């Protein structure tokens, strides 16, 4: 793995992280660094362990039977695997999934519910929910129907609501697992624009299969690959560097569409 970026102290550092499910190794010895406010795209073919790597950061993998995570994961200088309080960790690290998954509650309750669960003072909840909806550009579209079911929104609106639901807890890091892949092109462009607007304010790690999207959005790119049956990181570098002057032949072939 090459590392040519020089920045401040990284917000998120993965050191030789391996994720295994029983005997099956999903990804081995993955290392990367994400700077504060940076958007890093995690690209690579299916099955190379990108989503497993993402899930190890906020310890979603803890709940998966037979899953083990090795190596170190540092969030703002703290080893997340030593954390005893998952609630705080998951408030710091928001996550959005491939399929929009708003709860079967009203639009506003999708935001108020996590706030209530995290014991945010009642007087602050409404304002924070409204701010989160404004941040994702949904406020003007839904302000007249906040008590309507969230499942009545379009796919793109639902995904933006899910991003708002993650943002409402004021995380430092946002993990996006293929947030546009289940959306139509128009909704995908809207969500892309939203993600671009969040850059700088949040440290973002985004899994995507869409290289063009990675190129449009990312500050840096980490390329994962399958070696045998096991995933690995072949290159992690600035976006321009990866696409214009890749350090690894696999990256060059993958970006040229000749592999993967």
């Amino acid at each position, binding site marked *: 793995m090459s590392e040519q970026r020089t920045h401040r102290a990284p917000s998120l550092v993965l050191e030789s992280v391996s994720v295994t499910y029983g005997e099956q190794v999903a990804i081995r010895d993955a290392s990367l660094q994400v700077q504060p406010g940076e958007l890093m795209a995690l690209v690579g073919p299916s099955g190379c362990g990108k989503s497993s790597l993402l899930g190890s950061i*906020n310890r*979603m993998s803890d*709940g998966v*039977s037979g899953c083990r995570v090795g190596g170190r994961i540092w969030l703002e200088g703290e080893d997340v695997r030593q954390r005893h309080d*998952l*609630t705080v*960790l*998951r*408030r710091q690290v*928001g*996550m959005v*999934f491939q*399929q929009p*998954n*708003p*709860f*079967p*509650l*009203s639009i*506003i*309750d999708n935001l*108020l*519910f*996590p706030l*209530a*669960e*995290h014991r945010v003072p009642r007087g602050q*909840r*409404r304002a924070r929910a409204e701010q989160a909806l404004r941040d994702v550009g949904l406020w003007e579209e839904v302000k007249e129907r906040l*008590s309507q079911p969230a499942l009545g929104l379009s796919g793109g609106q639902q995904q933006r609501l*899910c991003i708002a*639901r*993650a943002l409402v*807890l004021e995380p430092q890091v946002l993990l996006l697992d293929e947030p546009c892949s289940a959306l139509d092109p128009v909704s995908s462009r809207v969500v892309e624009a939203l993600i671009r607007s969040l850059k700088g304010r949040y440290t973002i790690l985004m899994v995507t299969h869409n290289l063009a999207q990675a190129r449009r959005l990312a500050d840096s790119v980490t390329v994962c690959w399958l070696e045998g049956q096991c995933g690995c990181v072949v290159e992690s570098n600035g976006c321009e560097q990866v696409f214009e002057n890749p350090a690894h032949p696999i990256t060059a072939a993958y970006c040229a569409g000749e592999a993967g």
Partner: protein
Amino acid sequence: MADRVAWLAGWVLLALVMVPVALMVTALWQQSADVLSVGFLLEDPGRAGRSGGIAALLISTGWILALCLLVAVPVGLGCALYLSESLPADSRRAQWLGGVLDMLAAVPSIVYGLFGYQFFAITLGLGFSILSGALALSLMVLPLMIRSAEQAMRAVPMGYRQARDALALSRWGWVRRILLPCAAPGIAVGIILSAGRALAETAVLLFTAGYVLRRPDSLFDSGRTLSVHIYDLAMNVPGGMPRAAATAVVLVALLVLLNLLVRRVLRQPMTEALV
């Protein structure tokens, strides 16, 4: 051509289901037409059921059904929550427990009756009583209730569970706001089926609640339910068939009402605003 065959097959199957139901309702109605009236619902039975109505039996049935559900619903939901939220569906323990519940659901009701008599009536000293009957009935319907509620809970979309974990929601908050409302239709179906089975049950109650015809004064009194009354009138009382049919009409009407009530409840908004 295939569409026409499928259409025809659909109607034939529908007729196969509906015709016996229609015949049964018609037969019951014809036999009970002279007996059914408002007075039949409001009067207590007389002369071993040959005269009067079924008011005392409605009271006994109500008590037994309410107590049965009062015990079975919370216990059943608790067990279903444990199974669905703590044990992966493919785990050995979940499969073993599921197998045991399926086996218990298939145990003949008379066995529950015998056990209920031995345990509740004799060992616990509750005698032939509303309480013995309700507890024995709740044991009988528990496996059905647990399995239907568990399956309804397991069917809640995985995406909601992912969001729950990512947001670090509390178990109680998740269960109260998302899981139970999502699983409510399946749980309600389980409750309706259980209530229906309890309402229609005879063998268990003969052993535990007895068949005294008068109104129960307390939970420790013996009481006769509608289904036991139907059995007794039809089998032991000469000339009791019209009143047995009339009681059966009331029993079926109660089941239909119960079904409609639950459907109405399910149409209400499932979640309330937090603000």
